[in-house]
C-alpha cells in the first residue's frame, strides 16, 4: 500500500516579474521519505522550497499538505508554516539570543508552550543534535556546523510534519559538512519527511529515497537515486551530472 502523501504539488507556476521561475512543477512527497532536489544555480530549487512553506506565494497550481489543499485565501499561512520547518543555507540564527533562546522562542511565542516545558524540550533537542554543552552561549561563538545544528533544533522545536533544507551545508567549511549531514541522516532515520536541496551527492545516494533534477524551473527527471545517478534517462540530466562529478 502506498504511504500517505505529506506534500503534493500540482502544476505549480511562479514568476518574478518577467522571469518565469517555476513551470508546471508536479511533486509528491510520501510520509517519511527524503526527496533530494538537484539542479544548476537559478533552476528554481529554492523558489520551489519557499513556495512549499509559503515564504513565496505561487502564481498558479495547487499545494496540498497531508491531502489538504492550502490557499492563502482560506488558510492562515502562519499556522501552515508551523507545520513546515525550514533550514537555510546561512543558518539565520537570532544573534541576540542564546542557543537555547533561539530554540524556545517560537514554541513559547507562537504555540504558547509553557516556558518550562519549552526549555525542557529545547534542551532535549539540543542534546539530540550534540550541543548539550552550548545552551547558554551566543551563536557568534559557534562553528558553522554547530550553528546549522542549532538551526535544525530550532526548526524541530515547532514539531513540523515536514522539514525543508535549502543547501544546508553549502556555507560550511568542508570538515564541518559531515556533522550536519549526520544530524540530517538521523532525522531521516527517525522517519521525518524531508525535502533537501543539496550538492552532496553522497548524501543524496545514501539517504535520499527519491532524487529530482530541475532545470529552468521544470522537473526534468525524477527517480530512485541509483537510477537517476547511474542510468539517467534524459540528456540534460547526464550533462548536469557529468558537470558536477
Amino acid at each position, binding site marked *: 500500500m502506498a504511504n500517505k502523501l505529506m506534500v503534493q504539488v500540482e502544476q505549480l507556476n511562479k514568476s518574478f516579474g518577467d522571469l518565469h521561475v517555476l513551470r508546471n512543477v508536479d511533486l509528491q512527497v510520501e510520509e517519511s521519505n527524503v526527496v533530494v532536489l538537484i539542479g544548476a544555480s537559478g533552476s528554481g530549487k529554492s523558489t520551489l522550497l519557499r513556495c512549499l512553506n509559503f515564504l513565496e506565494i505561487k502564481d498558479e497550481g495547487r499545494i496540498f499538505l497531508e491531502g489538504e489543499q492550502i490557499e492563502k485565501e482560506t488558510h492562515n499561512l502562519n499556522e501552515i508554516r508551523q507545520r513546515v520547518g525550514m533550514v*537555510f543555507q546561512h543558518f*539565520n540564527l*537570532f544573534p541576540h539570543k542564546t542557543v537555547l533562546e533561539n530554540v524556545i*522562542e*517560537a514554541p513559547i511565542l*507562537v504555540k504558547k508552550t509553557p516556558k518550562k516545558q519549552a526549555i525542557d524540550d529545547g534542551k532535549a533537542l539540543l542534546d539530540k543534535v550534540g550541543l548539550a554543552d552550548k545552551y547558554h552561549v551566543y551563536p557568534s561563538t559557534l562553528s558553522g556546523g554547530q550553528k546549522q545544528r542549532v538551526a535544525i533544533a530550532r526548526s524541530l522545536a515547532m514539531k513540523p510534519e515536514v522539514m525543508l533544507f535549502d543547501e544546508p551545508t553549502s556555507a560550511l567549511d568542508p570538515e564541518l559538512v559531515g556533522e550536519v549531514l549526520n544530524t540530517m541522516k538521523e532525522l531521516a532515520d527517525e522517519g521525518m519527511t524531508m525535502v533537501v536541496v543539496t550538492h552532496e551527492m553522497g548524501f543524496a545516494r545514501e539517504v535520499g529515497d527519491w532524487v529530482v533534477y530541475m532545470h529552468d524551473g521544470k522537473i526534468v527527471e525524477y527517480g530512485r537515486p541509483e537510477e537517476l545517478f547511474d542510468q539517467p534517462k534524459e540528456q540534460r540530466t547526464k550533462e548536469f551530472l557529468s558537470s558536477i562529478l
Partner: protein
Amino acid sequence: MSHFFDVFMVSYPIFLEGLKITLYLSAASLIMAFVIGLFFAILKISSIKPLQWIADGYIWLIRGTPLIVQIFVLYYGITEIILIDAFWAGAIGLAIHSGAYIAEIIRGSIQSIAKGQMEAGRSLGMTKLQTMRRIILPQAFRRAIPSLGNQFIIGIKDSSLVSFIGAQELFGVSSSLGSNSFDFLTFYSIAAVYYLVIVLVLSVVVNRIEKRLAKSD
C-alpha cells in the same frame, strides 16, 4: 578666572534650577521623540505607499525648516487652541523635531538587519509583527544606539532654544542673569560648563551600554 569661579559658586543654586528644567525638557522630549521616530520608521518601511508618503512628508518638513521656526510655529499654533506652557510647547516641538531624525536612524538600522532574520521568524510560524517585535527591532536598536546617543546629545543642546518662548532652562537662566548684571560672558560660559558636563555624562553612559551589548553579539 577667579571671578568666574566666584560667580559660578554664587549662582549655582539658580543654575541648578535651570539644569533641572533642561533635564526634564530633554527627557520628556526625547521619550516622545523616540515614540514618534519609531512610529514613522515603521510607516516608512511598511509596504503601503500612502503611509510611506506621510512619513516622507513629515521628515521633509522637519528637515527643511529651522528648529527655532518649528518651536515658534508650534507654540503660537497650539496656544491659539489651548493654553499650554512654554515647557510643554517646547518639549512637544523638540520631540517632533528629533522624531524625524530618529525615524531615519531607526529605519536605517531596521533595514540593515539581514533579510534572513525575517524569513527565519516567518518560517517558524511567527507573524510579521511578532518577528518585528522579538527579532528585528531588538537587533536594530542595538545597532542604532551610537546614532541614537548622538541624536540625544543634539536634542539636549537644542533644548536651549526653548528659552526663546520663555522656558527658564539653563540657557534662559544664563540670559536672565546676564542681562541683570551685564556680565553676559561669564554667565554664558557657566552655561557652557553645565552643558559640557551633561553631554559628557551621557556619552559615557551610551559607551557603557554599547560595550555591554557588544558582548552578546
